C-alpha cells in the first residue's frame, strides 16, 4: 500500500508550510472576525479560506509573508461570503472592511502579547467573574443561553458580561503598557 500512499498524497506539504499554516490560524480567525463581527460566520469563512489555502499551496512562495498571503485569500472569501448573505444578515460596508483590515494588520504584531496578557488577566479575575466568562465562551453558548442556564434576567447577564469584558480590556491595556515600559 505504500505505493498507493504516494499516489494519493502526491503533494505533501512541507513541514514549514504546515507550521506557517498552523500559526496563522488564530490571527486569520481574528482578522476575519473583526470584519464580520459574528463568530459563526468568521469560522465559516475561515474554513473556506483554509480550503483555498490548501488547494493553492503550490502557489505560495517561500520566504514571502505567509500571513499577508493568507489575509489576501481571506479578504476575498469575506467578500464572497458577504455577497451570499447580504440580504439576510447585517453586514458592514466596503470602507469599514478595508479600514478595519488595515488596523488589524497594524495590530497584528502585538497579537501574541495580547493573548498572553489576556491569560494573565483572566487569572486575575474574581472567581465568580472568571466562571461566568468561561461559561459564556464554552462552545455553543452565548449570553442568551447562559442567562437561561443560570436563571438570571437576560439584561443583567449582558451587563455582567459587558463589565467583565471591559475590565479585561483595561487589564490587557495595562499589561501591554507595562511590557513596553518594562525591562
Amino acid at each position, binding site marked *: 500500500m505504500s505505493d498507493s500512499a504516494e499516489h*494519493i498524497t502526491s503533494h505533501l506539504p512541507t513541514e514549514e508550510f504546515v507550521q506557517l499554516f498552523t500559526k496563522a490560524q488564530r490571527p486569520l480567525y481574528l482578522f476575519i472576525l473583526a470584519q464580520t463581527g459574528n463568530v459563526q460566520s468568521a469560522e465559516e469563512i475561515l*474554513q473556506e479560506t483554509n*480550503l483555498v489555502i490548501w488547494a493553492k499551496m503550490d502557489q505560495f512562495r517561500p520566504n514571502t509573508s505567509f500571513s499577508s498571503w493568507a489575509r489576501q485569500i481571506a479578504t476575498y472569501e469575506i467578500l464572497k461570503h458577504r455577497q451570499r448573505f447580504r440580504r439576510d444578515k*447585517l453586514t458592514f460596508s466596503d470602507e469599514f472592511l478595508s479600514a*478595519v483590515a488595515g488596523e488589524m494588520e497594524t495590530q497584528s504584531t502585538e497579537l501574541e502579547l*495580547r493573548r498572553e496578557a489576556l491569560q494573565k488577566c483572566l487569572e486575575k479575575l474574581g472567581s465568580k467573574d472568571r466562571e461566568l466568562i468561561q461559561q*459564556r465562551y*464554552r*462552545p455553543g453558548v452565548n449570553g442568551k443561553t447562559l442567562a437561561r442556564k443560570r436563571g438570571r434576567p437576560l439584561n443583567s447577564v449582558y451587563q455582567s*458580561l459587558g463589565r467583565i469584558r471591559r475590565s479585561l480590556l483595561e487589564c490587557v491595556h495595562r499589561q501591554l503598557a507595562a511590557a513596553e515600559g518594562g525591562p
Partner: protein
Amino acid sequence: MSSFSQRELLSLVEALCEETATPAEIARLEELVLSNLEARRLYVEAITLHGLLHWDAAGLGAETESAITQALTLPPQLATFRTSRHRESKPPIPFRRMRAFITGIAVLVILKLGFSYWNPGHPQLAQNPQKPLPTPSAMPHDTSDDAREVPDVHLPSGPRRNTLQSSLPGEVEPSIASMNPGAPVSTFELTSDDAVISRINELIESRWKAAGVTPSPRASDAEWVRRTYLDLVGRIPTVDEAESYFRDQRTDKQQRLVDDLLERREFARHLSTVWTNLLVGRARKSNIDRMALAEWLEDEFAADRPWKEIVTDLIAARGTPQESGPANYLLAHLNNEAVPATAITARIFLCEQLQCAQCHQHPIVKDWGQERFWELNAFFQQAKIQFRKITDAKTGKSRETRELVDVEQFGPSYYETLRGVMRVAYPRFAGVEIESASQESDLPLRERLAELLFAESQPQAARAFVNRTWAQLMGYGFTFPVDDMGPHNPVSHPELLEDLTAAFVQSGYDVRRLIRWICLSEPYQLSSGMPRQNPHRRPPEEGELPLFASMAVKNFSPEQLYDSLRIASGDSPRILGLRGTERQREEWLRLFYSANENEENSESSTFDGSISQALIMMNGDLVNQALSLREENSLGRIVSASGLSEAERIRAISLVALSRYPTQEEQNQLRDLLRRSIRQRVTEEGMPTQVALAEGLRDIFWAYLNSSEFTLIR
C-alpha cells in the same frame, strides 16, 4: 477627527458580540470606526478580545495551538485532538457515532441511488444466493414405525420443471452415473483450455438464444477487477491493484489477472478458507484443530494437489488434531455413530442430501432408501477416536489427545427400518459391496471408500466439485441448491455440467484449471446489471433455473468481509496470511458463530444481515480500526494528503472502499454533504476546520464501509 465616547463604542461592540445589534447600531458603529482612528483602534482591540476568548474558550483551551501543530504534522494525533480543546464539551463516543450514523445514512442513500443505477435488474439477487452452511434437513426426522403411513415429506426446495418431471422414469437406475437422466454421457475431449472455454460459451449462449434473452453487457473494469479479486483471493483489490488493472491497455488483461491471482499464495489461502468452512464449519470446537486443517488445505492447494488426492486424504486420514491436518475432518464428525460424518461426506463431496434417507424412503428416487445412507455409514465403522498420551513438546508435560485410528475389530452398521425392524448394512458404494472388508483387503474401509468415490469414469465426486466451483464463482450452481444433486432435482445445463466434469477428470482433477476455465468464460465477464428488455425471470430461489445471462450478485462471506476491511483500512495483503492475523480473524468470526451438536453438526450464525451483524459492522473494533487516522491507514493518508480538493478526497475514499470512482451524481451529493458537516462541526461544535474535514471524511468512509455495495460481489 471627531471625538467619540469610549463607552458608546464599547456598548455597540457588546451588542455585536451578543448578536443583538440593530441595523441602526451597526450603522453607528461603522460611523464611529470610520471617522476616528482612536475608535478604530478600540474597536479592533475589543473585537479581538472577544475573538480570543471565543477561540481559546476563555482560557479553557489554551493548548489549542500546540494541539493543532501536532495534529497536522502527526496525523495519528488528529483523532485525539478534540480532547484538548473540548475536554468539557466533548460528546461521548456513542454520540459521535450517532452523528456519523446520521451523515452515514444520507451517504448510504446516495450510494444506493448509484447502485440501483448500476443494477436495474433484480434487487432480490442481493439476497444471499449462497448456501455456505449446513442447513437443517429438508425432511423432518420422523421415527414413526408405521411404514404405511407416508410421513409428511417435504421435497428439498429445489426448482422443478415439468419437462424434467416427465423425463423422470418411475424407477431410477441404481447407478450413480445416470444421476442426470437428461444429460448425454459426455464425449468431450480435453484438447486445450481454450476448447473448454469455447464449449462453456457455446452451451451457455445457446440457452440464451433459446430463451430469447439478451445477456448483460460486459462488466466494467471496476466491477470485474473487484469481483475477480474477491472470488479468487477472497478480498477486495488494493487501490494500487485496482488502478494498475484500469491502466492496463492490453487486450488479454483479464487472462493475465486470473493467471496472476491463481499463482498467489492468497488463492490457496482463500480456497482453504472456503473448504475448511464446508468441512468443519466456522464455530470453534475444542476437540479439533481447525487451524491445522486450514493450513494443511492451504499447502495442498498451493502445491496444486489434484482434488481426488485431497479428498482421499480427508477421508482416510489418521492421527491427532495437531499432527494431522486432514484428520480433523472426521475427528469433528465421527460422533453419533458417524451419522454426521456420513451426511456431511455425502453433502460436501457428492452434493447429495442423504441425511433425509437416514430415516425416510425417498419419495421419488426409490434407490435412495435408508440402506443407501447406512451403507455409506458402514464405511466409517472402522474409524474410531482413541485417546493417547503424548508429551507436549513445549512444556514437557504429558497430556491426553484424541487420535483418529482404524481399529481391527469392527462391525457393519445397524439401523431401524420404517417398520421398526433392525437391519444390517454392509459398506457399499457405486455398486461395489465389501462383504467382510477386514479379511478381503488390507486396506482400511475408509481408503476403500475414497477409491470408490472416484472409481467411475465420470464420478459424482467430480461432478459435485464442478457444481460447487461453478456456484462459488457464478453465484448459482447448475442445481439449486448446489448441494442437492439428486435425480429429483433438475440441472440447468446438463450437457455443460457433464462436459465440464469430463474435462475436469481428464485434467487430473486440476482445481486451478477448472477455476481458470470458468473465470475466462463469457458468462463470468458479464455485468451484474440486467438489461431491461429481457423477459422477467424469477431467481433460482423461486424455482426458475439460472441462464447465467448476467452475473449474480454474491454476498461477502465473513472472511471476505474481514479481509476486505483490513485491506480497505490500509493493511498490506501480505499481513493477511500471517498467523497472527489468522488468529485475529478467527476471534472476529466467533462474534457470529456458535456450534450445534446435532445429527448434522450444524451451526448457528448471525452473519446474515441481522441487527447484530449490523451493529458489529457499525460499531465494531474492526471498522473503528479502519476509521482510524493513523498515517499508515488509508483514511489517514487521504485526510492528511494536502493539495487535494474535497472531490479528490471523496474519489480516493470511493476507490479504497469500492474499487471504483464515484459517479458524478454521487460525487456532487457527497461533496455537499461533506461541506455541510464541516460547517456544522465548525460552527456548532467549535471544531477547527482541518479536524472537521477529517471527521467529515471519516463519516463518508464509515458510510462507504457500511453500504450494501461494500459487502456485495457484483
